[in-house]
Structure formats: C-alpha cells, structure tokens
C-alpha cells in the first residue's frame, strides 16, 4: 500500500477533488483538447498569452482521474505568470522526471519541487500519461494545435 499512499497523497486528492482554475476564461486566446483514449478522458486547456509571451491566464475544463485532474490543477497554478518558454522548459523537466529519466532531489527549482508530489506515478507506468496529459495539451495549445492524443 505504500506505493499507493505515495501516488495518492493528500495534496493530490485535494487538487483532484477541488481543482484550481477549473473554468473557461472568455478572453483565452489559445486552447487545445487533450484526449486519453485509454480511459476516454478529455481535458481542454485555455491559455491567455500576452504580447510579451507571458501566460497571463491559464485554466482548464474536463474530466479525468485524480492524477490527471491534480496535475492539470497544479499546472495552472504553476505556469500562470511564466513565459511560454519557461512553461515548456518546466514540462520538459517534469516529463523527464516522471518517466524516470531524471532524478530530482529537493529544491533546485521551486516549481519542480511542487510537482514532486506527483513522483509516485513513477511506480505506475500506465499512469504517466495521466500525469502529463494536461502538460501535453498546454504545449499543443501554445503550438496552435487544437487536438492532442496520448496513446
């Protein structure tokens, strides 16, 4: 059960049940739909990107498991106010981290540190897609692609 308690930490259950920024901002200028065909879940990510490339607002709607909802919710909190570039770079590191390509110990980056609660997913390879769906969808929205699927 330890792996499970790692996966379903309080923070995650809380974000899963009470997702932050769960709304459709009227002034969003980018959006994308993310599909997880394995479980049929679907999220929409909305972004408002300023002239300077700053993520001025980020929100999401949709449904999914606790992991994907928590990951989406946490993502919206973390990338708001960042540049597009910084958001992408963060996803890159986060991705390497949950797929076990990179070890992250403690505090070399405050944002990544917040995401460490998602580390439990490493023990559940089938669930990595759930943890990264929102992020893939966010970069798709930035790229102007409107649909993304994680197979």
């Amino acid at each position: 059960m330890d792996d499970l308690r790692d996966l379903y930490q309080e923070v995650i259950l809380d974000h899963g049940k009470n997702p932050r920024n769960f709304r459709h901002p009227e002034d969003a200028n980018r959006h994308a739909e993310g599909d997880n065909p394995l479980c049929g879940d679907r999220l929409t990510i909305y972004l408002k990107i300023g002239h300077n490339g700053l993520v001025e607002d980020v929100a999401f709607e949709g449904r999914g498991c606790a992991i994907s909802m928590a990951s989406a919710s946490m993502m919206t909190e973390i990338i708001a106010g960042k540049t597009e570039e910084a958001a992408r770079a963060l996803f890159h590191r986060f991705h390497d981290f949950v797929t076990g390509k990179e070890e992250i110990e403690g505090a070399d980056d405050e944002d990544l540190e917040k995401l460490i609660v998602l580390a439990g997913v490493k023990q559940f390879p089938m669930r990595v897609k759930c943890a990264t769906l929102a992020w893939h969808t966010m970069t798709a929205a930035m790229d102007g692609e409107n649909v993304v699927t994680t197979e």
Partner: protein
Amino acid sequence: MNAALAEARPSNSAFDVEKVRADFPILSREVHGKPLVYLDSAASAQKPRQVIEAETRVYEEEYANVHRGVHYLSQAATQKFEATRTRIASFINAPDENEVVFTRGASEAINLVAFSYAAHFLKEGDEILISELEHHSNIVPWQLAAQRNGAVIRAIPICQDGQIDMAAYADLLGPRTKMVAITAQSNALGIIPPLERMIPMAHDASAKVLVDGCQAITHRPVDVQAMGCDFFAFSGHKIYGPTGVGALWGRAELLEAMPPWQGGGEMIARVGIEKSTYKGIPHRFEAGTPAIAQVIALKDALDYVDGLGMGAIAEHEAMLLDHAVRRLEAMDGVTIIGTSPAKASIVSFLLDGIHPHDIGTIVDREGVAVRVGHHCAQPVMEYYDIAATVRASFGLYNTLAEVDALIASLEKTREIFA
C-alpha cells in the same frame, strides 16, 4: 430480485469450481504479493492446461503447413486443423462445416463481412443499423465499408437500463435497411439484447443480420440455426482458447456469393499473373498460412467448456453476478450502469467521486484485475455521459470469495479517497 434468484439456486451445485481452477495454471499466481483475482475475462479469458498443452502438442508432435502437402505431418496437421472446423460447426449448430471461416478473431470476421458482403451488396443510401451497445469492432468496419459505397450507418438507441430501445428499432427498420449488426451481449454492460425478436424483425424488412457473438458464446449455448442470424462472429481467446484465432460463420448461400477479400496462398484455384480463379467456401476466405496451432487448440477449448456444460457454466456465472450485484448495491455511492435484468457475467459500475482509472490502479495492488475505461464501446459511454466505468467480468473459474475480494478492494479504495 437478484437476492431471490441467488437464494433459489443450490449453493453446492454440480459445478466444482475448485477442480476447474486447478486446470488454469495462471490462477495460482500472485500479483503484488496477493492472490490473483482475475475479473477481466470479458477482455480475454485465461487458458486451461488442456488448451496450452494442445498447442504445444502440435508443435512437438504433428506440425507442418496445412492443405498443401502429401507428406505425413502435413496430412496429420491438416486433418486436425479441419477437425476444429467441424467442431465449431457442431458447437454453434451450424448446418455445414464449410460455412465456418477461420479468422484472427471476431474483429477480422466482422471486417470480412463488411468488406466482402457489405461493400459488394450494399449501395449508396442503403442503411446499416448498429446498436449503441456495440463494441468498436462491430462499428468501425461498417463505417469503413460505408465510406466506400455510400451506405449510411444508423444507430439503434438504447434505454436508460442499457437495453435496446425496441420501439426505436422498429421505426428504424425499413426498405433501406440492408444489414443489422448487433451484439448478442454487450461487453461493456453485460446486457443481452432480445435477438429472438430483433432478428425476425430485420428479416421481415429483408435485411441481413450479423451477430457479434464474442461475449455471448462464452456464457451460454449458441445455436445459429435457432437464432436465425445470417452471420455470427466470435474470438477464440475469449472462450478459453489461444490468441490469434477466431471464426466467422455465415450462411453458405451468402458466403458463396461473396467475392474474396484477402488474396494469397490457400484461397486460389488457379493463378495467372493478371487473373486468378478462387476456391469455393470456406477456403476462398482463408488467404495465407492460417494460425495452425491455434486453430487446432481451439477445438480443445470448445471441448473443455462443453465438458463442463454451457448450461452449468451459465448457472455458475449467474450466481457470481447476482452476488456481485447484491454486494455492490449494498455499498454506498455505487451506481451500476446497465440495470436491465437481461444480463450475464458482467457488471459495470461507478463509485461516487472516484474515477474508474484510480479504482483500477488501487484494486490492482490488492491483486484484483478489473477493466476500467470505455471498454471499446464509446457510444455506450456517450449515452450515459461518462468517460469510463469499472467493469468486473466473470469466467467459469471465478468464485464467490473473489467477488468478496473485489468488494473489499473497493472499500480500501474508498478509504484512500476518504
């Protein structure tokens, strides 16, 4: 009602589930340190040693390519291969073994009909009716066929209890209806459509009927003549047989009129570079080297279930389903999807506030294997406006204690999410 049914059944029936379990090597393994509780037979069934050994025996004792050789091994393999065709015919009560075509599985069988029958005999504007209960394998092949010939797909809607909306079905049937493709049992919900009424109605409208028998054939006796359908498809791996093999049964007069689909060795009479002539049925539809060892071992799977008796299996599984339904209904916050009483061996449900995906992960750590997701039946999910369910499906080797283990693992899930 479920409780009443369960009590009416003798608890110590002739069906000896422990003896059965001993035939399935995998059932004695552990998963995450817990005994395996395999409740995913609707996705694919485990195999008894009789089947495993049959396949091994082919390779160790009498293996060669079939149909083309005069040497001993080739004759022996061909004889065993064809014996399965005969066995399938008797198992589903087909009038003629030449009406049985070997395929990789139900999906390929349905594709065969969609390509060879639908693509040739349906015209622009003709209608293909498929129900909202169908597995993707009984939807997508028809869509692909319709794209080629301009036929139109129309959905037979379902009701809140998961059963076919028969009034809507009657309305949909008409002079344009040329094909009705319908499952004999929903893999997502376990619901059993009333084929005994639906097939005659289709025939009254002069439509042909393909029955997807993938689930049904594993749970109760099948008689294609009594059923009255025109095509019947099933997969070996769901009926305790090997992977890589399945079959299509079709009425001889229909199969004979159908052009070949795939080309290759075995299916031809004479080949020129520009033009060829084809063999009769069933060989015309069996291009290339077939799944020889798997076809042969499929016979052992059918012998196995027949040995236990499809009636006894149905009864055992009904007991499991009743128990599962009762225990689920006794839990708080459980919603069962598909509540029609015409249902077998499968229960699909939701737990309030916990996503099926999370449930699947958590119960897995308790050794309980259930399927979570859309079960390749997205139109069903769309009807209920959900993305996924948890599905527990029972096979002949499951026990009441395993149902209890499922319930206990669901309680654990709730603790974690409490």
